[in-house]
């Protein structure tokens, strides 16, 4: 993986939405620093602003005010908001994304889904990355299957492979286990931990599950748009409890689960 010294520094990030005449601060004056190679989790109840924050940190949206620096480079500062084009350029070079609903393209095979980002942008040296990743994630035997033919846990593994195919420096995971049962959730978190430990990949994971969040190295909690870091003893217990005896690769015991993705249409 890319070992460049990218870290995230957010200074007084604020995002205000208008609902009629009412102003809602979804993210309110948030400052935080994430070092390269950190695995952090953000927890909080629904509506606390954690998804808005991850969208800002992941350059999916412009903040109302505040600054964001990636590896010393100012992305959002006091200047005007970045265009969609500029945001896309940053995203495809630095970030990988995984979502609760996987968002795999149902007409493309597992391998094609993983290779999809390369259709739009390809970093040098990523030619064989798709197959390597599928192998690493234990999905090589499913590479010619369509998403509808594999289980939810496997779909999320494919989504992780897709996010990793262009060798990002930061992986953003928004409720990556929200559609999975406990066992599958444990497996996915374990995959993320391994990627973080073995590749030095920076991971920011949003979850509403405090037990899962404790598998990260650092944990932040959001409430009403404000953020605070929670001191705790990082542990693998949740993951170990549910997946210590399971191999990294997916098993045939996985059952396809229903998701609400549009791609399922």
């Amino acid at each position, binding site marked *: 993986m890319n070992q460049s010294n990218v870290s995230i520094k957010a200074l007084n990030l604020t995002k205000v939405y208008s609902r009629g005449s009412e102003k809602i601060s979804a993210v309110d004056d948030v400052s935080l620093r994430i070092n390269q190679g950190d695995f952090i989790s953000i927890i909080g109840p629904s509506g606390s602003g954690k*998804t808005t924050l991850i*969208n800002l940190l992941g350059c*999916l*949206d412009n903040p109302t005010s505040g600054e964001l620096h990636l590896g010393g480079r100012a992305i959002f500062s006091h200047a005007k908001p970045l265009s*969609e*084009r500029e945001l*896309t350029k940053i*995203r*495809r070079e630095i970030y990988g*994304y995984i*979502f609760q*609903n996987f*968002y795999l*393209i*149902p*007409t*493309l095979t597992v391998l*094609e889904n993983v*290779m*999809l*980002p*390369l*259709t*739009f*942008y390809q970093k040098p040296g990523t030619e064989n990355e798709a197959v390597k990743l599928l192998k690493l994630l234990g999905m090589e035997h499913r590479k010619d299957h369509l998403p509808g033919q594999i289980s939810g846990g496997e779909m999320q593994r494919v989504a992780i492979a*897709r*996010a990793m195919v*262009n060798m990002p420096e930061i992986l953003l995971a*928004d409720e990556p286990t929200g559609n999975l049962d406990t066992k599958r959730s444990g497996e996915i978190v374990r995959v993320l931990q391994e990627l973080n430990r073995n590749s030095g990949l920076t991971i920011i994971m949003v979850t509403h599950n405090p037990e899962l969040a404790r598998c990260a190295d650092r944990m932040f909690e959001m409430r009403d748009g404000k953020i605070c870091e929670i001191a705790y003893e990082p542990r693998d217990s949740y993951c170990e409890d549910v997946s210590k005896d399971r191999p990294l690769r997916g098993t045939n015991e996985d059952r396809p689960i229903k998701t*609400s*993705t*549009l*791609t399922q*249409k």
Partner: protein
Amino acid sequence: MITKFQVAYKNLMRKRIRSLLTLVGIALSAWVLVSLLGFNQGYETALNKDIDNMGFELMVMAKGCPYEAATLMLKGGTGLKYINESIMDDIAKEPEVDKAFPMLMSAVFDPNKGESGGIAGYFGVDAKSFAEMKPSLKFRQGKWFTRTDTYEAVLGYEAAELEQREVGDMILMPEKNVEFKVVGILERTGTQDDGTIFVPLKTLQKIFDRPNELTTIGIKLKKDANSARFEEKLYKLPDVQVVSLAQVKDTIMKLISTAKVMVLSIASIAILIAMVGVINTILMSVHERFQEIGILKTIGAMPWDIFKLIWIETLILCAIGGLLGIGLALILSKVTGILIRYVMPYAPSGGLVLIDLRLIFVTMAAILGIGLVSGLYPAWKAGRIRPLEAIRSEVAR
């Protein structure tokens, strides 16, 4: 590596029936377009061929309606007017004239023709001058009659087939009850001559009691002759009119131009409907994939990438539809020709729908052009989808 083309193609396969129906719409409009353009050039080519095969440039006939004269010459008919044979000698003396040949057209009612009988046309010609005028006529069997007053006949290819006659057989002229001996059968020419029965001029004049009378004199001018000045000269002759074949062609083209405009309008409407169909299909597809497109942008697709992806989908539909339509037009060109022949006031012999490589390229370019234009709006709309909105739309669900 998966290409944008593969992604677009696989997406179209997601809703097979919808894509197929759109494809059929495009194919049908391409079919109409190719057939129409093919007809435009086929009709004119066939008409030119018909006129060239006549072997002469000017016709002299009795004064009357020029349209009537034109169709009479090309199609045969009744209600004929006559000119005196002596005019023929006057014309032959003119220095501009290379060759001239006299002709008497007669028609009889044949009760055995078709279901309820029909008109059978007889051309009284002078074998020598007629053969000189039309060197392209070849014999399948036999040869021309040698004299102008015998009871002999030469049959066009189709006339021989229809009457089932061989050289040496007798053929009866209905109504007049006169028998002719078949002395020759012509090869197929693809012109009006195929359905004609040629008999000696003097014999026909005698049978119809038209001594020294003709319906038409065909004139071939010398190469350097001034056609317009010669026509002026002919008008000085009493009670005749001169019809140049160029004029005949113009007249016929004018007659069918109205029909052409009608068909062109219908084709334009068909294309417009197909275009709306394409826009609708692609817009629906973009709407359904709102989230998916948003995610594609999240994973690195630029607005232009999405624009291209949607545009490719439109182009695939139009390219396959266009090819199907052209194939259909090629296969069914004969049927289209028959249909046109049925509705047109006059149709020359031979293939009426001429589809060549140039026409195929032009149509394909037109269909692809239409596809590109149809895809503009849906592609632009898809390119503008913001990833955040796509993700939020899931939250709102």
